[in-house]
């Protein structure tokens, strides 16, 4: 672990470098996980626009898997998907599967 800064090495006012949220694992807050059916997806990218955590990843205009490091399971993507390609499933089901 990196050495912690001392008081006078820190910028006053709790100001830090930008974009640090990308490095944090906040996916553990999730109760429901969005599961995407790629067969149904029409790549309209509505979910990408609406996701409040920028957890929807795209590549060359195509929908990729959801980034579970940041997805908190709010379900906006599933509610807004025009073709019903996203289903919200309880995390506990995956835990059972993984076990």
């Amino acid at each position, binding site marked *: 672990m990196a050495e912690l800064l001392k008081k006078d090495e*820190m910028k006053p006012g709790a100001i830090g470098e930008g974009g640090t949220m990308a490095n944090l694992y906040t996916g553990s807050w999730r109760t429901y996980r969005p599961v995407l059916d790629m067969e149904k997806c029409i790549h309209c990218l509505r979910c990408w626009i609406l996701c409040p955590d920028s957890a929807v990843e795209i590549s060359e205009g195509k929908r990729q898997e959801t980034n579970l490091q940041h997805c908190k399971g709010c379900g906006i993507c599933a509610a807004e998907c025009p073709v019903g390609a996203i289903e919200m499933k309880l995390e506990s089901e995956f835990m059972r599967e993984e076990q």
Partner: protein
Amino acid sequence: MAERVALTGNDSAAYALKQINPDVMAVYPITPQTELMHKFAAYVADGEVVTELVRVESEHSAMSAVVGASVAGARAATATSANGLALMWEVLYIAASCRCPVVACVVNRALSGPINIHCDHSDTMGARDSGWLQLYCENCQEVYDNTIQAVRIAEHPDVRLPVMVCFDGFILSHTLEALEVNDDETVRRFIGQFERPDNLLDVAHAQTFGMFALQNYYYEFKKQQVDAMANAPAVIQQIGDEYAELTGRSYGLLDAYRCDDADVILLGLGSTMGTVKQAADDLGEQEGLKCGVLKIRSFRPFPAEQILQAIAGAQIVGVMDRAVSFGLGGPLFHEVRSARYGHQDGPMLDFIYGLGGRDLGLDDAKGIFRSLADASESGRYEPTTRYVGVRE
């Protein structure tokens, strides 16, 4: 050229703010502050300032808008009273911890309940641990002068903390007094430009403002605030001296009146100190009582060292509190007594007065001095806390 004018306390603050010409003012009405913002809004409407006036839906939003503007590099200010300040509470701490050097004029009014619109200090006394500096005013001249100096004190690189300019509701806010105002150019030069080192709108160097800081960092940020507050007394004095050179009116951390050879000294805050000074004059001339008055201008930072120096020669010290900490007594009294511990002995009495705007007249002030002199002579100091003018 300085000019002599007649203004109310609210208009004095509004006039100072007009000359400061802040980038952003967030406004929400509450008695007795409302007229201050009415007046300032008229300056905006008349094009006398460039300020962006943000009309918000609550005081919580007013303080939030001020914090947002400040981290974006704006010189920002607001004003409120009593329950409005209480609604700002959460964001007061954020303004201080984000090191936003903003100014808030607080027109002192009793906190509900029972609901009341008149003066006491329960509103600002409750905010004394929020990390803001607090300057208290005796008259409309001080309202004007303190508002201008507050900008410089807040923005000083050794401080960078928000400042409250506190003045008594109705007693000052709605009372017309003669005062001297500086010309616009003098004020502009005195306050200079505000340069924020870290700016939210500097997108080329994006940073996180109002960061999360847990067990491993929160404590260090708080100690930085402690250190900044410790730097504040010297800065308040230095800016007061500079202002004195400019205007002839001198300001420090406190104002000692007839204290040098006084046997009895009364400490306190705000407009009441004017009445108490008159009482000290009268008793000195008519009854030969040597009375002194110590008016505390800066309650935060608390000028313990300077208070001890000023009261060192007194036989007895009284403290006037226009607020009460239930289960303890007067907040100012307890801080002064704590400052003396281990350095200075001598009896002290606490006088709670004026809650909810209950008037304190010249005779009441003389009565307080006499009761101090009596206690000193008889050696009987009980009760320590006395409630002036309450019916019981």
